[in-house]
């Protein structure tokens, strides 16, 4: 199931909300007492609905996920209980997670490389289980955090299952660290503010996905899904710019929805995006883009390898290789990762040293061009297509035809809205209103909430209309 599905919005969410509220009543009147507040019934509801949510799209792989959680639960307990063998238990746990990920995501890729080298192996056809890249990474973070004693061990299987399978973040992130939610699994409080903020955040995400990203996906496909016979240079640029918009609004929309639903349940996930297209360098871009992945690699790969103390270039290479590879079992993703690794390294010794003396506009343009070209590498898994795309992009074909104008003109306001929403408009508007009317005053509150209400109603109504009859609607990052 995906978030931007009418079935999810109007069947799953209402059904879940009712059951969760019912769970709340059971917790209050049957399981809990004045002294101890119970979350048992609510957590059960959350786990059950999460499993339904996952099984809806992966009716068989749900057992793989359950098995993975069980393994991690046992390893976590072993790390916690044993003193002598805790390192071994960690190694076994992390190893098993990597084996699961390697088997289901990369085995076919490895086999094809071996075949390419002339070896006679059979390339297995294994379908990628949705969200496996996210939940194995979360499992690894759990084991390492328990090992490092950064987080307490999860003593119940249900608790760990809740953490891993929680449907808001299950299939496309953000990669929620165990430490972030460890306390909230068994003790959380939801205020009215939480619900209002959470619902608002969810609708921001829904709007980003349905109103913006889905439209851009049509534009991008119009130019990029092609045999290149008709593609012009201007079309290639518009196509890849449309994909640039699509992937940001798609992925950050999903993160918004996940954070929003989590908030309504009392969980506080970390932010995953911070207006990445406002970056002034590629290093800056990666501090703003998919932050949960970047920090995962920093804390669980880069620093353990030695960080900037030992063989830093090697560490950087490894991290970017893995960052690329995490996105998919294909060379283009690895190249895409190394491309950014190379730029980040270069920036470290050049640009970042003189950055203060360069006008902001130039820095911004420089970064965006490199990011957009990066998406060109990212988009095409087939090398022949990628080469032809870049040839056309840099003028090795027809330069222009009417289709480009038509894609720009007939989506004019979409482009305008998208560019505006790439900037921290909401934050600036909120700050402006606070300055004008005084922070926390009733007038300020009234204006803010009215604006939110207008936006929310519009987003929900528009999204619903746009989703009717929509077919090609899956989130991009559920593939990774």
């Amino acid at each position: 199931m995906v978030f931007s599905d009418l079935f999810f919005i109007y069947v799953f969410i209402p059904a879940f909300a009712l059951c969760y509220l019912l769970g709340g009543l059971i917790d209050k009147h049957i399981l809990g007492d004045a002294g101890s507040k119970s979350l048992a019934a609510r957590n059960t509801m959350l786990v059950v609905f999460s499993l339904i949510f996952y099984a809806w799209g992966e009716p068989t792989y749900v057992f793989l996920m359950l098995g993975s959680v069980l393994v991690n639960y046992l390893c976590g307990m072993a790390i916690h209980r044993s003193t002598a063998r805790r390192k071994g238990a960690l190694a076994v746990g992390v190893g098993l997670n990597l084996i699961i990920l390697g088997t289901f995501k990369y085995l076919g890729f490895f086999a094809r490389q071996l075949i390419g080298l002339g070896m006679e192996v059979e390339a297995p056809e294994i379908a990628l289980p949705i969200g496996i890249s996210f939940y194995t990474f979360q499992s690894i973070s759990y084991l390492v955090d328990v090992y490092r004693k950064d987080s307490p061990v999860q003593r119940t299987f249900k608790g760990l299952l809740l953490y891993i399978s929680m449907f808001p973040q299950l299939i496309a992130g953000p990669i929620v660290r165990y430490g972030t939610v460890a306390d909230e699994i068994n003790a959380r409080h939801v205020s009215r503010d939480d619900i209002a903020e959470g619902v608002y955040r969810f609708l921001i995400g829904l709007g980003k996905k349905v109103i913006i990203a889905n439209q851009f996906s049509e534009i991008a496909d119009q130019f990029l899904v092609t045999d290149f016979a008709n593609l012009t240079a201007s079309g290639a640029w518009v196509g890849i710019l449309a994909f640039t918009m699509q992937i940001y609004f798609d992925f950050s929309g999903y993160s918004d929805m996940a954070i929003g639903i989590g908030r309504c349940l009392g969980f506080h996930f970390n932010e995953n995006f911070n207006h990445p297209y406002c970056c002034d360098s590629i290093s800056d871009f990666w501090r703003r883009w998919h932050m949960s992945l970047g920090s995962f690699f920093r804390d669980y790969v880069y620093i353990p390898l030695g960080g900037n103390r030992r063989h830093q270039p090697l560490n950087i290479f490894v991290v970017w290789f893995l960052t690329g590879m995490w996105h998919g079992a294909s060379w283009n993703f690895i190249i895409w990762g190394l491309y950014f690794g190379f730029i980040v390294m270069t920036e470290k010794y050049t640009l970042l040293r003189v950055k203060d003396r360069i006008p902001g506009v130039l820095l911004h343009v420089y970064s965006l061009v490199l990011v957009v070209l990066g998406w060109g590498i990212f988009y095409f898994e087939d090398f022949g297509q990628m080469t032809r795309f870049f040839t056309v992009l840099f003028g090795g074909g027809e330069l222009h035809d009417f289709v480009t104008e038509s894609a720009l003109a007939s989506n004019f306001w979409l482009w305008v809205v998208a560019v505006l929403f790439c900037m921290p408009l909401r934050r600036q508007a909120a700050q402006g209103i606070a300055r004008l009317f005084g922070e926390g005053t009733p007038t300020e509150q009234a204006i803010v909430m009215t604006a939110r209400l207008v936006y929310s109603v519009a987003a929900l109504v528009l999204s619903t209309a746009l989703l009717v009859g929509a077919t090609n609607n899956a989130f991009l990052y559920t593939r990774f």
Partner: protein
Amino acid sequence: MKKVYTFIICLLFATGAVVFCAFPRSTYSQIEKRDLAALPEFSFEKLFDGSYTREISSWFSDTEPFREELMAFSMYINEKKGMAVQGEENITFHAGNAAAEDDNRTIDDYENNVTADENAKLADSGTIIVGSGPNVRALMIYGGSSNGGGCFAEMVNKYKRTFGSRVNVYCMAIPIATDFYLPDKAKGRSHSSLPTIRNIYAHLDPDVKAVNVYTTLANHAKENIFLRTDHHWAPLGAYYAARQFAEVAKVPFKPLADYEKRVVHRFVGSMYGYSKDRAVKNAPEDFVFYVPKNVQYTTTYINYDLNEQLRVVSESKPYQGQFFTKIKDGSGNAYLTFMGSDFKLTKVTTGTHNGRRLLIIKDSFGNALPGNMFYSFEEIHVVDFRYFTKNMTAYVNGNRITDILFAFNIFNCNASGACNRVVKYLTQRDGTYSAPTPSRSAQPASTNPADALLPTDDQMPDIAPAIDSRQPEQTDPTRPTPQQSALPQDPQESAEPVITAE
């Protein structure tokens, strides 16, 4: 304040949930002219491979209550997200090439003098929207080449060889609106039918008579010979084509003065559903057709009942009906005026007595032809290429047919499955109610959006989807099953390779 916000939004969600779960679900889409998805049947196999839940999700979003309204709203948003671009309305009129119409196998090039400078934009299903305002026109993309259509020529030749000198056989390959109205700036986006038509005519046996309607239509391109909002030609275009055919066949033909002009007002045709562009909906047109005056004729139909695979499973007894069906103003089904549908065998007996009896083997484009021939032939039999249950050889001989006209639009000229089927009619036994099971039914989905509207009539929702019992103007007792009303896909035809631009 936050309480109010949460309350209103939750109320909105709850309302949506109640409406979408409890209100009666939509079953038919007027805009797309198709029946909507049905609730999938449960099986454990489907549950475990994930298709059951997937079908539930798509069924849910396909059959939303108030679907039409929401869809219209969604198209409204899509229209508003763009900037209005005004096309230059400097249409220059040139006299068309006065081609030598006696030699029907040599076809001159046509230069678009009507909409050459218009604006163009790409819309859904690879359609091209030309111009703006009340004269907007939606075009299909054609991907065929100069190698296409060989099967069509072979089929026609086969008929000629079967019946020999007793029967005249004519070949009419009908171009589409794109051939005449594609603006210059969109030239690279669609091929012309002309190379295919030339190829077809080059492959015809010498004793088959070609009917060059390409030049005929080109000469009248500034008139309303094609519908702007539908994929069919307009009855006027068919009239000129019929005149050209009459000239080749050397039969009498009457000027338009002998016809009564009738109009279905506010017609918006199939291209709206394809392009999903509101500019098309906002530019309805008059569907003008011509009913012969001063001639007696009786129309006899045999109706076919079809199964889900669009195979004929049974047929009605012959009965007399109207040739011209009354269609209400504002209906999207105006093209059903002629004979009401494709699922039938039609025989028209006219008051003309000249010993000439015509059989037309056609797709839906051909439906607009016979109404112009009542002065020309004493009997006209109309067979849709997709549906025929008798032995064609016996049918032609038994009805003492003197002339056979093949009239296919350029997409179907490329459909070798269609051609093979029509050849099979020559030898099939009387009462053939189900054709052989398809041997190659799977066709890889094309990734090129430009192919979406290619290549055969069988893949286009033709006029079939319009048949629906909810539309009161239908006099046709044939009520196809839901699947027929969706894209009619014949397994045999769909196995044919998709024509791609090359």
